[in-house]
Protein backbone atom coordinates (compact mmCIF):
# COMPACT_ATOMS: atom_id res chain seq x y z
CA UNK A 1 0.00 0.00 0.00
CA UNK A 2 0.88 3.64 -0.31
CA UNK A 3 3.43 4.86 2.22
CA UNK A 4 5.07 8.23 2.78
CA UNK A 5 8.58 6.94 1.95
CA UNK A 6 10.15 9.25 -0.64
CA UNK A 7 10.84 7.74 -4.05
CA UNK A 8 13.59 10.33 -4.57
CA UNK A 9 16.61 8.50 -3.15
CA UNK A 10 18.86 10.27 -0.65
CA UNK A 11 21.96 9.34 1.39
CA UNK A 12 19.63 9.15 4.44
CA UNK A 13 17.87 6.09 2.94
CA UNK A 14 21.03 4.05 3.61
CA UNK A 15 21.00 4.80 7.37
CA UNK A 16 19.02 2.14 9.31
CA UNK A 17 15.82 3.50 10.97
CA UNK A 18 16.98 2.74 14.56
CA UNK A 19 19.74 5.42 14.68
CA UNK A 20 17.50 7.86 12.78
CA UNK A 21 14.69 7.53 15.35
CA UNK A 22 17.23 7.96 18.18
CA UNK A 23 18.75 11.13 16.63
CA UNK A 24 15.24 12.49 16.01
CA UNK A 25 14.36 12.00 19.67
CA UNK A 26 17.52 13.87 20.82
CA UNK A 27 16.98 16.68 18.28
CA UNK A 28 13.32 17.12 19.36
CA UNK A 29 14.32 17.35 23.03
CA UNK A 30 16.91 20.04 22.18
CA UNK A 31 14.44 21.98 20.01
CA UNK A 32 11.77 21.99 22.71
CA UNK A 33 14.17 22.91 25.55
CA UNK A 34 15.69 26.07 24.01
CA UNK A 35 13.29 29.02 23.68
CA UNK A 36 15.63 31.40 21.84
CA UNK A 37 14.58 32.87 18.50
CA UNK A 38 18.14 32.97 17.04
CA UNK A 39 18.78 29.35 18.00
CA UNK A 40 15.44 28.30 16.47
CA UNK A 41 16.19 30.26 13.26
CA UNK A 42 19.63 28.62 12.89
CA UNK A 43 18.09 25.20 13.66
CA UNK A 44 15.48 25.69 10.93
CA UNK A 45 18.16 26.78 8.42
CA UNK A 46 20.11 23.62 9.33
CA UNK A 47 17.04 21.42 8.80
CA UNK A 48 16.36 23.06 5.41
CA UNK A 49 20.03 22.37 4.57
CA UNK A 50 19.46 18.68 5.39
CA UNK A 51 16.60 18.66 2.86
CA UNK A 52 18.65 20.51 0.21
CA UNK A 53 21.66 18.19 0.47
CA UNK A 54 20.17 15.27 -1.56
CA UNK A 55 19.04 17.68 -4.30
CA UNK A 56 16.20 19.93 -5.46
CA UNK A 57 13.70 17.13 -6.18
CA UNK A 58 14.04 15.81 -2.62
CA UNK A 59 13.73 19.34 -1.23
CA UNK A 60 10.48 20.02 -3.07
CA UNK A 61 8.94 16.68 -2.06
CA UNK A 62 9.90 17.56 1.55
CA UNK A 63 8.16 20.93 1.21
CA UNK A 64 5.02 19.19 -0.10
CA UNK A 65 4.94 17.05 3.05
CA UNK A 66 5.34 20.15 5.23
CA UNK A 67 2.56 22.05 3.45
CA UNK A 68 -0.36 20.69 5.59
CA UNK A 69 1.20 22.61 8.50
CA UNK A 70 0.11 26.01 7.13
CA UNK A 71 -3.26 26.32 8.98
CA UNK A 72 -1.43 25.79 12.27
CA UNK A 73 1.17 28.45 11.38
CA UNK A 74 -1.65 30.88 10.54
CA UNK A 75 -3.51 30.21 13.83
CA UNK A 76 -0.36 30.70 15.97
CA UNK A 77 0.64 33.80 13.96
CA UNK A 78 -2.82 35.40 14.26
CA UNK A 79 -3.07 34.75 17.99
CA UNK A 80 0.38 36.15 18.76
CA UNK A 81 -0.25 39.12 16.47
CA UNK A 82 -3.48 39.71 18.40
CA UNK A 83 -1.69 39.55 21.79
CA UNK A 84 1.29 41.55 20.41
CA UNK A 85 3.76 38.87 21.45
CA UNK A 86 5.19 38.13 18.03
CA UNK A 87 8.58 36.94 19.27
CA UNK A 88 7.25 33.95 21.21
CA UNK A 89 4.88 33.29 18.29
CA UNK A 90 7.86 33.11 15.93
CA UNK A 91 9.72 30.77 18.31
CA UNK A 92 6.71 28.41 18.36
CA UNK A 93 6.34 28.52 14.56
CA UNK A 94 10.07 27.97 13.86
CA UNK A 95 10.26 25.16 16.40
CA UNK A 96 7.15 23.47 15.05
CA UNK A 97 8.40 23.61 11.45
CA UNK A 98 11.87 22.24 12.40
CA UNK A 99 10.48 19.46 14.60
CA UNK A 100 7.90 18.36 12.03
CA UNK A 101 10.40 18.64 9.14
CA UNK A 102 12.95 16.46 11.00
CA UNK A 103 10.30 13.85 11.83
CA UNK A 104 9.10 13.89 8.21
CA UNK A 105 12.70 13.40 7.08
CA UNK A 106 12.91 10.16 9.09
CA UNK A 107 9.56 9.01 7.67
CA UNK A 108 10.50 9.93 4.09
CA UNK A 109 13.79 8.05 4.18
CA UNK A 110 12.78 4.84 6.02
CA UNK A 111 11.31 1.79 4.29
CA UNK A 112 8.01 0.61 5.81
CA UNK A 113 9.18 -3.01 6.22
CA UNK A 114 12.34 -1.83 8.05
CA UNK A 115 10.27 0.30 10.41
CA UNK A 116 7.80 -2.56 11.11
CA UNK A 117 10.80 -4.82 11.89
CA UNK A 118 12.13 -2.11 14.24
CA UNK A 119 8.75 -1.76 15.99
CA UNK A 120 8.52 -5.55 16.49
CA UNK A 121 12.09 -5.57 17.87
CA UNK A 122 11.42 -2.65 20.22
CA UNK A 123 8.17 -4.32 21.41
CA UNK A 124 9.99 -7.53 22.46
CA UNK A 125 11.03 -6.32 25.97
CA UNK A 126 7.37 -5.44 26.64
CA UNK A 127 6.40 -9.13 26.35
CA UNK A 128 6.26 -9.38 30.16
CA UNK A 129 3.66 -6.59 30.22
CA UNK A 130 1.40 -8.55 27.88
CA UNK A 131 2.44 -6.97 24.57
CA UNK A 132 3.17 -9.90 22.26
CA UNK A 133 5.42 -8.86 19.33
CA UNK A 134 4.05 -11.58 17.02
CA UNK A 135 0.44 -10.53 17.74
CA UNK A 136 1.44 -6.92 17.06
CA UNK A 137 3.02 -8.00 13.75
CA UNK A 138 -0.13 -10.00 12.86
CA UNK A 139 -2.36 -7.00 13.70
CA UNK A 140 -0.24 -4.69 11.51
CA UNK A 141 -0.38 -7.21 8.65
CA UNK A 142 -4.17 -7.57 8.97
CA UNK A 143 -4.61 -3.80 9.06
CA UNK A 144 -2.53 -3.31 5.91
CA UNK A 145 -4.47 -6.11 4.19
CA UNK A 146 -7.94 -4.90 5.19
CA UNK A 147 -7.65 -1.14 4.81
CA UNK A 148 -7.86 -1.21 0.97
CA UNK A 149 -10.80 -3.66 1.25
CA UNK A 150 -12.68 -1.33 3.61
CA UNK A 151 -11.93 1.74 1.48
CA UNK A 152 -13.24 -0.10 -1.59
CA UNK A 153 -16.39 -1.19 0.23
CA UNK A 154 -16.89 2.36 1.52
CA UNK A 155 -16.59 3.65 -2.05
CA UNK A 156 -19.17 1.11 -3.25
CA UNK A 157 -21.57 2.13 -0.48
CA UNK A 158 -21.23 5.79 -1.47
CA UNK A 159 -21.83 4.87 -5.13
CA UNK A 160 -24.94 2.83 -4.35
CA UNK A 161 -26.25 5.69 -2.21
CA UNK A 162 -25.69 8.11 -5.10
CA UNK A 163 -27.57 5.86 -7.49
CA UNK A 164 -30.62 6.03 -5.22
CA UNK A 165 -30.57 9.59 -3.94
CA UNK A 166 -29.77 13.10 -5.11
CA UNK A 167 -28.51 14.05 -1.64
CA UNK A 168 -24.89 13.33 -0.62
CA UNK A 169 -24.33 10.13 1.39
CA UNK A 170 -22.30 11.72 4.22
CA UNK A 171 -22.37 9.97 7.56
CA UNK A 172 -25.21 7.62 6.55
CA UNK A 173 -22.77 5.14 5.01
CA UNK A 174 -20.91 4.72 8.32
CA UNK A 175 -23.44 2.24 9.78
CA UNK A 176 -23.27 -0.22 6.84
CA UNK A 177 -19.49 0.25 6.63
CA UNK A 178 -19.03 -0.56 10.33
CA UNK A 179 -21.43 -3.53 9.91
CA UNK A 180 -19.29 -4.83 7.04
CA UNK A 181 -16.19 -4.50 9.27
CA UNK A 182 -17.91 -6.39 12.10
CA UNK A 183 -19.05 -9.17 9.76
CA UNK A 184 -15.59 -9.41 8.16
CA UNK A 185 -14.03 -9.69 11.63
CA UNK A 186 -16.32 -12.62 12.40
CA UNK A 187 -15.40 -14.43 9.16
CA UNK A 188 -11.66 -13.77 9.43
CA UNK A 189 -11.55 -14.87 13.09
CA UNK A 190 -13.31 -18.11 12.10
CA UNK A 191 -10.85 -18.63 9.24
CA UNK A 192 -7.92 -18.08 11.62
CA UNK A 193 -9.37 -20.60 14.09
CA UNK A 194 -9.97 -23.11 11.27
CA UNK A 195 -6.28 -22.84 10.39
CA UNK A 196 -5.17 -23.68 13.92
CA UNK A 197 -5.70 -20.23 15.44
CA UNK A 198 -3.17 -18.36 17.48
CA UNK A 199 -1.34 -20.86 19.71
CA UNK A 200 -2.14 -20.39 23.44
CA UNK A 201 1.54 -19.81 24.27
CA UNK A 202 1.51 -16.88 21.88
CA UNK A 203 -1.37 -15.21 23.71
Amino acid at each position, binding site marked *: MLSLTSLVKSPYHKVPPGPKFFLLMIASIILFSIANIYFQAVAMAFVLGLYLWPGWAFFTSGLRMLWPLWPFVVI*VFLWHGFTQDTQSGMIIILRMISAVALANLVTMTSQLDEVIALVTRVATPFRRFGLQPQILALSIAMFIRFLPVLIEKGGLLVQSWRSRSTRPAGWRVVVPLALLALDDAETVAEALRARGGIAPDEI
Partner: protein
Amino acid sequence: MEKNIVIIALFAALISALGLVPKFTLASGIPITAQSMGIMLCGTVLGSRRGAKAVLLFLLLVAIGLPLLAGGRGGLGVFGTPWAGFLFGFPFAAFAAGLIMERWRSDNIPLVAGCAAVGGGIGALYLIAVPYYMVATSSGLNEALVTAMLPFMPGDILKAILAGYITAGLAKARPHSLLSRA
Protein backbone atom coordinates in the same frame (compact mmCIF):
# COMPACT_ATOMS: atom_id res chain seq x y z
CA MET B 1 -8.84 -14.41 21.17
CA GLU B 2 -8.63 -14.48 17.37
CA LYS B 3 -11.80 -12.41 17.16
CA ASN B 4 -10.37 -9.79 19.52
CA ILE B 5 -7.22 -9.37 17.45
CA VAL B 6 -9.11 -9.28 14.15
CA ILE B 7 -11.72 -6.82 15.36
CA ILE B 8 -9.06 -4.49 16.82
CA ALA B 9 -7.18 -4.52 13.47
CA LEU B 10 -10.41 -3.99 11.50
CA PHE B 11 -11.60 -1.10 13.63
CA ALA B 12 -8.16 0.51 13.33
CA ALA B 13 -8.66 0.17 9.56
CA LEU B 14 -12.18 1.61 9.93
CA ILE B 15 -10.81 4.75 11.63
CA SER B 16 -8.49 5.21 8.63
CA ALA B 17 -11.23 4.54 6.08
CA LEU B 18 -13.47 7.11 7.80
CA GLY B 19 -10.73 9.70 7.27
CA LEU B 20 -11.16 9.19 3.54
CA VAL B 21 -14.75 8.26 2.71
CA PRO B 22 -17.48 10.53 4.01
CA LYS B 23 -16.54 14.18 4.14
CA PHE B 24 -19.13 16.72 5.12
CA THR B 25 -19.04 20.47 5.60
CA LEU B 26 -20.39 22.37 8.59
CA ALA B 27 -22.69 25.35 8.20
CA SER B 28 -19.68 27.50 9.15
CA GLY B 29 -17.82 26.14 6.12
CA ILE B 30 -15.27 24.08 8.08
CA PRO B 31 -14.87 20.72 6.32
CA ILE B 32 -14.81 17.86 8.79
CA THR B 33 -14.05 14.22 8.26
CA ALA B 34 -15.47 11.36 10.25
CA GLN B 35 -12.06 10.22 11.55
CA SER B 36 -12.51 11.38 15.15
CA MET B 37 -15.99 9.85 15.02
CA GLY B 38 -14.15 6.59 14.31
CA ILE B 39 -12.27 7.06 17.59
CA MET B 40 -15.57 7.56 19.44
CA LEU B 41 -17.08 4.49 17.74
CA CYS B 42 -14.10 2.35 18.79
CA GLY B 43 -15.01 3.11 22.39
CA THR B 44 -18.79 2.88 22.12
CA VAL B 45 -18.78 -0.32 20.02
CA LEU B 46 -15.67 -2.22 21.18
CA GLY B 47 -15.60 -1.07 24.80
CA SER B 48 -12.79 0.52 26.80
CA ARG B 49 -9.83 -1.85 26.43
CA ARG B 50 -10.41 -3.13 22.89
CA GLY B 51 -11.35 0.38 21.72
CA ALA B 52 -8.16 1.91 23.14
CA LYS B 53 -6.08 -0.89 21.60
CA ALA B 54 -7.61 -0.30 18.15
CA VAL B 55 -6.76 3.41 18.44
CA LEU B 56 -3.21 2.64 19.62
CA LEU B 57 -2.69 0.36 16.61
CA PHE B 58 -3.97 3.12 14.32
CA LEU B 59 -1.59 5.67 15.89
CA LEU B 60 1.34 3.25 15.67
CA LEU B 61 0.72 2.85 11.95
CA VAL B 62 0.46 6.64 11.52
CA ALA B 63 3.77 7.03 13.39
CA ILE B 64 5.63 4.49 11.28
CA GLY B 65 4.73 6.40 8.15
CA LEU B 66 1.38 5.42 6.68
CA PRO B 67 -0.66 8.42 5.38
CA LEU B 68 -3.76 7.52 7.40
CA LEU B 69 -4.84 10.77 9.02
CA ALA B 70 -7.51 12.83 7.28
CA GLY B 71 -5.95 14.68 4.34
CA GLY B 72 -3.36 11.93 3.78
CA ARG B 73 -1.11 13.04 6.61
CA GLY B 74 1.05 10.66 8.60
CA GLY B 75 4.55 9.90 9.73
CA LEU B 76 6.31 11.05 12.86
CA GLY B 77 5.93 14.71 11.89
CA VAL B 78 2.26 14.84 12.84
CA PHE B 79 3.28 14.23 16.46
CA GLY B 80 5.48 17.35 16.41
CA THR B 81 2.82 20.08 16.35
CA PRO B 82 1.29 21.71 19.45
CA TRP B 83 -2.00 20.04 18.40
CA ALA B 84 -0.51 16.55 18.73
CA GLY B 85 -2.21 16.33 22.13
CA PHE B 86 -5.34 15.37 20.19
CA LEU B 87 -3.53 12.34 18.77
CA PHE B 88 -2.10 11.39 22.17
CA GLY B 89 -5.56 11.86 23.64
CA PHE B 90 -7.31 9.57 21.12
CA PRO B 91 -6.68 6.27 23.00
CA PHE B 92 -7.88 7.86 26.25
CA ALA B 93 -10.95 9.20 24.45
CA ALA B 94 -11.84 5.71 23.17
CA PHE B 95 -11.15 4.19 26.59
CA ALA B 96 -13.35 6.72 28.40
CA ALA B 97 -16.19 6.36 25.86
CA GLY B 98 -15.99 2.57 26.21
CA LEU B 99 -15.97 2.78 29.99
CA ILE B 100 -19.13 4.92 30.03
CA MET B 101 -20.86 2.44 27.69
CA GLU B 102 -19.83 -0.48 29.92
CA ARG B 103 -20.92 1.12 33.18
CA TRP B 104 -24.13 2.92 32.17
CA ARG B 105 -26.43 -0.02 31.48
CA SER B 106 -29.46 1.80 30.12
CA ASP B 107 -31.30 0.40 27.10
CA ASN B 108 -31.52 3.83 25.52
CA ILE B 109 -28.46 3.18 23.31
CA PRO B 110 -28.54 6.45 21.29
CA LEU B 111 -28.54 8.47 24.53
CA VAL B 112 -25.89 6.38 26.34
CA ALA B 113 -23.62 6.11 23.27
CA GLY B 114 -24.03 9.83 22.54
CA CYS B 115 -23.12 10.72 26.12
CA ALA B 116 -20.22 8.24 26.03
CA ALA B 117 -18.97 9.84 22.80
CA VAL B 118 -19.22 13.31 24.39
CA GLY B 119 -17.51 12.13 27.60
CA GLY B 120 -14.69 10.38 25.77
CA GLY B 121 -14.38 12.15 22.42
CA ILE B 122 -14.77 15.62 23.89
CA GLY B 123 -14.28 15.45 27.69
CA ALA B 124 -11.30 13.09 27.94
CA LEU B 125 -9.82 14.24 24.63
CA TYR B 126 -9.75 17.96 25.46
CA LEU B 127 -8.52 17.22 29.00
CA ILE B 128 -5.34 15.97 27.33
CA ALA B 129 -5.20 18.11 24.19
CA VAL B 130 -5.65 21.52 25.85
CA PRO B 131 -2.97 21.10 28.59
CA TYR B 132 -0.66 19.57 25.95
CA TYR B 133 -1.09 22.68 23.80
CA MET B 134 -0.41 24.89 26.83
CA VAL B 135 2.84 23.06 27.64
CA ALA B 136 3.98 22.82 24.00
CA THR B 137 3.50 26.53 23.35
CA SER B 138 3.98 27.88 26.90
CA SER B 139 0.60 29.56 26.56
CA GLY B 140 -2.19 30.39 28.96
CA LEU B 141 -5.58 28.73 29.22
CA ASN B 142 -7.36 31.44 27.17
CA GLU B 143 -5.05 31.06 24.19
CA ALA B 144 -5.27 27.27 24.38
CA LEU B 145 -9.07 27.36 24.44
CA VAL B 146 -9.29 29.74 21.47
CA THR B 147 -6.65 28.09 19.27
CA ALA B 148 -6.85 24.41 20.24
CA MET B 149 -10.45 23.90 21.33
CA LEU B 150 -12.83 26.37 19.71
CA PRO B 151 -12.12 25.56 16.02
CA PHE B 152 -12.86 21.85 16.53
CA MET B 153 -15.72 22.03 19.01
CA PRO B 154 -18.77 22.37 16.69
CA GLY B 155 -17.64 19.43 14.55
CA ASP B 156 -16.89 17.29 17.59
CA ILE B 157 -20.33 17.85 19.13
CA LEU B 158 -21.98 16.91 15.84
CA LYS B 159 -19.78 13.81 15.55
CA ALA B 160 -20.61 12.71 19.10
CA ILE B 161 -24.34 12.90 18.36
CA LEU B 162 -23.86 10.94 15.13
CA ALA B 163 -21.69 8.38 16.96
CA GLY B 164 -24.63 7.81 19.32
CA TYR B 165 -27.03 7.14 16.42
CA ILE B 166 -24.54 4.97 14.55
CA THR B 167 -23.85 2.83 17.64
CA ALA B 168 -27.61 2.43 18.10
CA GLY B 169 -27.93 1.44 14.42
CA LEU B 170 -25.26 -1.21 14.85
CA ALA B 171 -26.89 -2.52 18.05
CA LYS B 172 -30.19 -2.82 16.19
CA ALA B 173 -28.73 -4.60 13.15
CA ARG B 174 -26.38 -6.91 15.08
CA PRO B 175 -27.44 -7.02 18.75
CA HIS B 176 -24.38 -9.09 19.72
CA SER B 177 -21.91 -6.84 17.94
CA LEU B 178 -21.86 -4.27 20.71
CA LEU B 179 -18.85 -5.68 22.56
CA SER B 180 -18.97 -2.78 25.01
CA ARG B 181 -22.19 -4.35 26.32
CA ALA B 182 -21.06 -7.99 26.03
